[in-house]
């Protein structure tokens, strides 16, 4: 097999084949809704050394999004991700620190101006001039504006960067704000989630690197391929919902049997995400609803960290796999059985009765007239 040369993290030592590599790219392509050949093209571009340059900024966050990115189980994660994209600035992953790393940022900004992808992880505090989050003596809000001005594309990963997330939860003491709210007028791809599914990031970045385009976005900047539907629509427990089988409390018969968690406060019906379709870090069943806990709505602004976890919500976009009967449903009774024959025979008899009356009257009246004429 044609082993792929790699300068980062020694892929060769792990025996990573070109074939595996294309597979990863194809998976990433599929995640953004691109055909398989797009994955191959991505792989080609990466092999040619045209890796997208990524600058990753951390603000008010827990680093959960980065951690989950590093924990995709297959393909062998960190290495791959770091091979697919050229991370030129990342506070968590970089060995360097202090002035050194700040220089790296400056360097990356100049080298790839207008081309690099800016990934923001974490919310940005606005209160009191943004003093509550500073890195290297610079306020988060200033860094963001400075870097964003030179970025080719901006991606906000996780709910914190997308709309504020945990730091913005009431009473929001620091005035934590999401990236789109600060960069008004700029296209910001938001990948909300706590943490966000790494494949959604991978797909988006690779599409940008390969084609220079961004996936189709909704009005909140969320890629439609991942956030176009609510979790409820594709939920693995959906048949239980449709059959009216609800877990009433944790540990009850319904809960143990895997019934719908709606009554326990599941936010799936209002939460836009592809959790129910795309395994998290490729671990099957590694998301709340699968493990028996209602969805907390982490991706959805106004729900995650805002609505109490066990509060029940109305259902948005109540599409159903089966049709509901209309208020006055068609019972289609004449369509069954001998409809046409019955109508024919019935009409014929009614016609015959009336016809016989008419004929008898005519005949009788003319006869009587004749008789009367004779008399």
């Amino acid at each position, binding site marked *: 097999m044609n082993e792929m040369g790699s300068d980062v993290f020694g892929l060769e030592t792990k025996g990573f084949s070109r074939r595996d590599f294309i597979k990863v790219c194809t998976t990433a392509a599929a995640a953004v809704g691109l055909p398989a050949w797009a994955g191959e093209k991505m792989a080609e571009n990466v092999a040619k050394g045209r890796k997208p340059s990524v600058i990753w900024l951390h603000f008010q966050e827990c680093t959960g999004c980065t951690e989950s990115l590093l924990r995709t189980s297959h393909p062998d994660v960190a290495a791959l991700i770091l091979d697919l994209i050229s991370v030129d600035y990342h506070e968590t992953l970089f060995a360097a620190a202090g002035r050194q790393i700040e220089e790296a940022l400056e360097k990356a900004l100049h080298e790839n101006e207008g081309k690099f992808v800016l990934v923001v992880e974490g919310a940005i505090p606005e209160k009191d001039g943004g003093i509550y989050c500073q890195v290297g003596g610079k306020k988060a809000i200033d860094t963001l504006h400075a870097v964003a001005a030179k970025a080719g594309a901006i991606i906000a990963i996780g709910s914190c960067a997308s709309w504020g997330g945990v730091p913005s939860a009431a009473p929001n003491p620091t005035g934590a704000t999401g990236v789109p709210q600060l960069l008004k007028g700029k296209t910001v791809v938001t990948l909300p989630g706590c943490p966000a599914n790494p494949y959604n990031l991978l797909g988006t970045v690779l599409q940008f690197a390969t084609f220079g385009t961004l996936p189709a976005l909704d009005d909140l900047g969320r890629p439609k391929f991942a956030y176009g539907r609510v979790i409820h629509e594709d939920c693995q427990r959906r048949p239980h919902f449709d059959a009216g089988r609800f877990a009433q409390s944790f540990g009850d018969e319904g809960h143990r049997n895997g019934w719908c968690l709606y009554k326990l406060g599941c936010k799936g019906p209002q939460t836009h995400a592809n959790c129910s379709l795309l395994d998290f870090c490729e671990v099957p069943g590694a998301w709340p609803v699968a493990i028996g806990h209602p969805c907390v709505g982490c991706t959805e602004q106004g729900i995650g960290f805002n609505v109490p976890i066990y509060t029940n919500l109305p259902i948005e976009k109540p599409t159903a796999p089966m049709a509901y009967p*209309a208020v006055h449903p068609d*019972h289609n*009774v004449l369509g069954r059985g001998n409809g046409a024959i*019955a*109508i024919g025979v019935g009409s014929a008899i009614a016609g015959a009765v009336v016809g016989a009356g008419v004929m008898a*009257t*005519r005949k009788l*009246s*003319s006869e009587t007239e004749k008789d*009367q004429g004779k008399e």
Partner: protein
Amino acid sequence: MSAHGHPKAIGGQLLGPSMVKLLALFALAAAVMLYRFVVGVGPVSNMTDGFTWGIWEPLNVVVFTGIGAGAFSVGLLTYAFNKGQYHGLVRPAVLVGAIAYTLGASSIVVALGRYWNAYWLPWVPYWNLSSALLEVAVCVIAYVTVLWVEVMPSVLEGAAASKHPRWAAIGKRWGPKLAKAMPFIIALAIVLPSMHQSSLGGLMLIAETKVHPLWHTALLPTLFLVSCLSMGFGAVVALVTILKLAWNGEHDQKLLAQLSKVNAGLLFFYVALRLGDIAWSGKLRYLGANFYTGLFLVEMALFLAPAILFLVPRVQANRGRLFGAALLAVLAGAAYRMDTYLSVYRPAGFDANGNAIPAGWQYFPSLGETIVTVGMAAVGVAIFIVVSRLFPVVVVDERSQHSKLERGAMKTAASR
């Protein structure tokens, strides 16, 4: 006052070819009914939860008894208003009434889902007097009995004239006794139908959202009572004409014309009542270019046409034309009844403009329902023929021999 002849048994062959045909039709109906008792009402009918009565109730009960109301209308005229000249019409009319009501009542048993519980009906403490149907049911059961009692004089007379000594003894013994009790029975035979015929209209009062506003009115009972009388008179005229043709029954054109004049009054009264009610209750706005207006106009035309015809001398003088007009009068009442119960009945009701709200139910009688209705009508005719042949019901015109006698009647005439 014309001297009326005495009724005679027609005699003749009981099981003629036409009788075989009638019985075959009934046999077909009986088979369907039997099947219904095995599998339920659904499989043999197109009745649904939306059109739950199909045609069995509106046609077999409401229209049949309307035709059978000849006994009521002629009885009312003859006995209560003391018009003795109509006496000759009473026995055939009563027989038709007895048969029509019996068939109506037995059709209902076929339509009833839980017929085995019907034995409670005579149990007075369970009567729900608010129910128009209970009134109809109890009244019809009573009236069927009364009608057959009214038929009994013919039977007893026939028995008295029989050669069989025991049979004759029964006839001679009970005939006069029954004759004495007759006024009380006849009075019952007038009160009962006026009660249940109006209740047949009252039945639909409850369905105020479901019956089209042009038909639904507090006058439903009155309109049904009037229409049953007009149907009854029409049916009697038609019956006498048919009897004349079939068996050379006595046929007094002047008498029938006179009867029809009464009927014309009833028909006009009905139309006036109906139109007046619609105008008075502000329902004229429902009239427009739609199905219901069309149906309403057809109905009105059906009522007005015979009413006018009955007053035209050319019609009065012509047996055929009078017959046709009389049939129209029957058809008018039948149409009104069928419309009220079925044609303008919509399960989901009507919107403010009188347009039906589509309810998803459609109805047209199934083959099974049609067969049962036709079979019931056929057996009714058959019973009439059998009874008339065996017992003195029909007054035969002995003065003139009509050229077009049915074979049976010819034989009778020959054997006489």
